[in-house]
């Protein structure tokens, strides 16, 4: 097997890796800015320089020439090489900053150059705390600068598009953003304008940076030049905690991180998953944070007089729900599951009404034909249509749902704005008793007689099956009124959580929604009805599912965590129009 010596240590390699990537793959480090594993390699930042040599081999025999000590003779490249663009070759000898003072010095000087015109405004910069330039300057940079001349000024606060704001002075012209629009989103909307110390990225005159993936440039910008217009100045990175989750705004299930502070989701960023979304996600998915915070259904509510809902207690909600169920035959219930809810929620929901004697819940996919692209935006607007199919919910078109409602006296809807998405209208619900188990205020919730607030993806651990049949899961990121970050080992703790107390002024109760996971609510309802129904945790629900459905055999939360989701052996179904 071919070998390479890095800082005196031998490594074997296969194929033709690039040196920088190979070094990173070994868990070692060389500072860099412009390189990105999913894009072309321009080698323009010059930060990743290392000393490289190759052994001298006899042309005829191919044998390595040895020196008087019996060591291989090395022919060093006359200048340091950018490791990002150097292909590793057999016998190559590499010295990084770890074993060569010269290399360390070169990297330090490069940083001094890069920083000549950089404003060094980290204290007011959003990128601070997650900024490669800041981190690498601390680690490898000079302590000061020999450049005492006035810095070059460039445009600031430029609204490149609706969602991305540019501070050109912070830009180090790595061209990552430009390459992103050329190679990944293929809108070609960005370019570097001007020349020398005056250059920065820009759109063509009069053009707006309205790329549906524009905010990925904010993530990959190695400095604070590109910032999210929406998130700017909202929170420092180190104040937030980061929880892995799934994008629920379409069927792709992009892997994401939810960033929370004081139980508000403040931003959503993509989490790398080679098999799903690589490093990217659509801008739309990032807006979902608002629906986790705002317009939530909190505390049960009930219609008492006319069309006005008012809040009520959980006990009263359970009692009302139970009385309605007791007053009607199972045949007269229309039970509607949801592609917008998780596998576990749909299962727990369906099982409950099965126990009462109802047929399998119906659901209708939420598809807008032609909405998707061939990348990460799908026609399917819901994260879990395949999950509903897998647990054998009864898939129908809009008409089927309408018919089911017409024949029913009580309609029970799980987390799906069927009125909002025109499956039926509020009039279709006249003289029916409507119960919604919902996360957010919607026209459907408004038309309901009883509303049970349930947890959203940001508040529970649950799994979703994407359009390609991959099952992936979420973690609770936000506390509800009834959960506690310190007690729930699945919740992440940020610095403010760990070191703060309830008496600190950055902690408030307001952002905790008064809601329960569907299964927990159904436990209470089951108790009241005397049903043999008990679901403790989504994890145990999933274990039950996995026993019951062959496609989920041997699949566990642990496996989903370790393998970043698991591809299921299910046929890709033609998605039907809603």
């Amino acid at each position, binding site marked *: 097997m071919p070998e390479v010596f890095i800082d005196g240590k031998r490594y074997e390699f296969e194929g033709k890796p690039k040196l920088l990537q190979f070094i990173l793959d070994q868990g070692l480090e060389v500072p860099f800015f412009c390189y990105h594993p999913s894009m072309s390699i321009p080698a323009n930042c010059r930060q990743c320089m290392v000393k490289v040599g190759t052994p001298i081999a006899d042309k005829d025999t191919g044998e390595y020439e040895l020196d008087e000590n019996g060591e291989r003779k090395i022919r060093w490249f006359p200048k340091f090489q950018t490791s990002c663009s150097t292909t590793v070759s057999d016998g190559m000898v590499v010295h990084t900053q770890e074993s060569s003072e010269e290399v360390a010095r070169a990297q330090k000087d490069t940083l001094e150059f890069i920083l000549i015109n950089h404003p060094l405004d980290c204290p007011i910069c959003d990128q601070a705390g997650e900024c490669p330039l800041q981190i690498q300057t601390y680690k490898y940079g000079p302590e000061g600068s020999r450049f005492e001349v006035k810095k070059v000024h460039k445009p600031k606060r430029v609204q490149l598009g609706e969602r991305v704001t540019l501070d050109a002075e912070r830009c180090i012209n790595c061209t990552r953003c430009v390459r992103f*629009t050329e190679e990944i989103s293929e809108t*070609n*909307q*960005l*370019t*570097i*304008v*001007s*020349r*020398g110390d005056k*250059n920065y990225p*820009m*759109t*063509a*005159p*009069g*053009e707006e940076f309205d790329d549906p993936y524009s905010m990925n440039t904010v993530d990959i910008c190695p400095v604070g030049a590109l910032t999210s217009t929406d998130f700017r100045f909202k929170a420092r990175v180190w104040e937030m905690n980061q929880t892995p989750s799934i994008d629920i705004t379409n069927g792709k299930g992009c892997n994401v991180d939810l960033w929370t502070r004081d139980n508000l989701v403040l931003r959503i960023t993509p989490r790398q998953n080679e098999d799903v979304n690589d490093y990217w996600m659509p801008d739309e998915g990032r807006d979902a944070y608002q629906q986790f915070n705002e317009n939530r259904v909190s505390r049960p509510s009930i219609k008492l007089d006319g069309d006005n809902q008012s809040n009520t207690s959980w006990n009263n909600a359970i009692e009302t729900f139970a009385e309605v169920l007791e007053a009607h035959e199972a045949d007269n219930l229309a039970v509607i599951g949801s592609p917008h809810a998780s596998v576990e929620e749909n299962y727990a929901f369906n099982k409950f009404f099965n126990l009462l004697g109802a047929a399998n819940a119906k659901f209708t996919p939420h598809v807008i034909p032609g909405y998707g692209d061939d990348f990460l935006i799908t026609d399917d607007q819901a994260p879990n249509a395949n999950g509903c199919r897998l647990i054998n919910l009864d898939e129908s078109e809009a008409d089927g749902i309408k018919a089911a409602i017409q024949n029913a006296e009580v309609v029970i809807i799980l987390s799906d704005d069927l009125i909002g998405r025109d499956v039926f209208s509020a009039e279709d619900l006249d003289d029916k008793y409507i119960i919604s188990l919902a996360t957010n205020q919607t026209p459907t919730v408004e038309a309901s007689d009883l509303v049970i607030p349930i947890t959203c993806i940001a508040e529970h651990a649950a799994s979703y099956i994407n359009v390609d049949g991959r099952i992936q899961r979420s973690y609770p990121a936000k506390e509800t009124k009834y959960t506690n970050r310190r007690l729930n080992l699945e919740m992440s703790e940020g610095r403010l959580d760990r070191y703060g107390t309830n008496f600190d002024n950055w902690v408030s109760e307001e952002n905790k929604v008064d809601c329960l996971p569907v299964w927990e609510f159904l436990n209470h309802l089951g108790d009241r009805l005397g049903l043999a129904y008990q679901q403790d945790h989504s994890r145990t629900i999933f274990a039950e599912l996995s026993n019951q459905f062959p496609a989920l055999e041997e699949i566990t939360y642990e496996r989903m965590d370790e393998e970043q989701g698991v591809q299921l052996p299910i046929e890709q179904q033609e998605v039907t129009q809603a």
Partner: protein
Amino acid sequence: MAEQDYSFTQEELDEIERLKAKFPTDKAATLRVLWVAQEKYGHVEPEVQQLVAETLDISPAHVHGVATFYTQYYKEEMGKFVLDVCTCLSCQLCGGYEILHHLEDELGIKAGETTEDGMFSIQSVECLGACGYAPMLQVTNGVYANNLTKEKVDKLIENLRNGNMPEFESMVMRQNEKRKKAVSE
């Protein structure tokens, strides 16, 4: 002012086809086609950049990037004579900025501006590859005026005002002067 309609004639389009054929990709022909456009309009304002992008079927952002990289492309209408004063390293060390400032004073405009009569524009530009005869300037992407002094600049302006373009000056490095003499004798 009525909005101008920018388009290439069939003849120009044929020329562009010939240019495209010289390059592996159409994108690579950007420089040349921008040039065709500038010859025609005297500038490559955004509308002209757009025309080039459409003609080559490439992104307007790319054309914009190329056009702004080179001072030789005029991103706005310029004076009749564009004086590109080199202020890059060699020229700077030999007094490039003094020449620039002298010009600015003489013409009453700053670098990047055009005189009111539309006669002169001044730009401060990067190395024009004539470091050996620094300081120097170039007139409207054409002849170089080398080894400048204030007097030489004054003379140049006067000549240009009278419609006399400076002659092309054949320059020889000092160390080669002897050889030149020998060759010409």
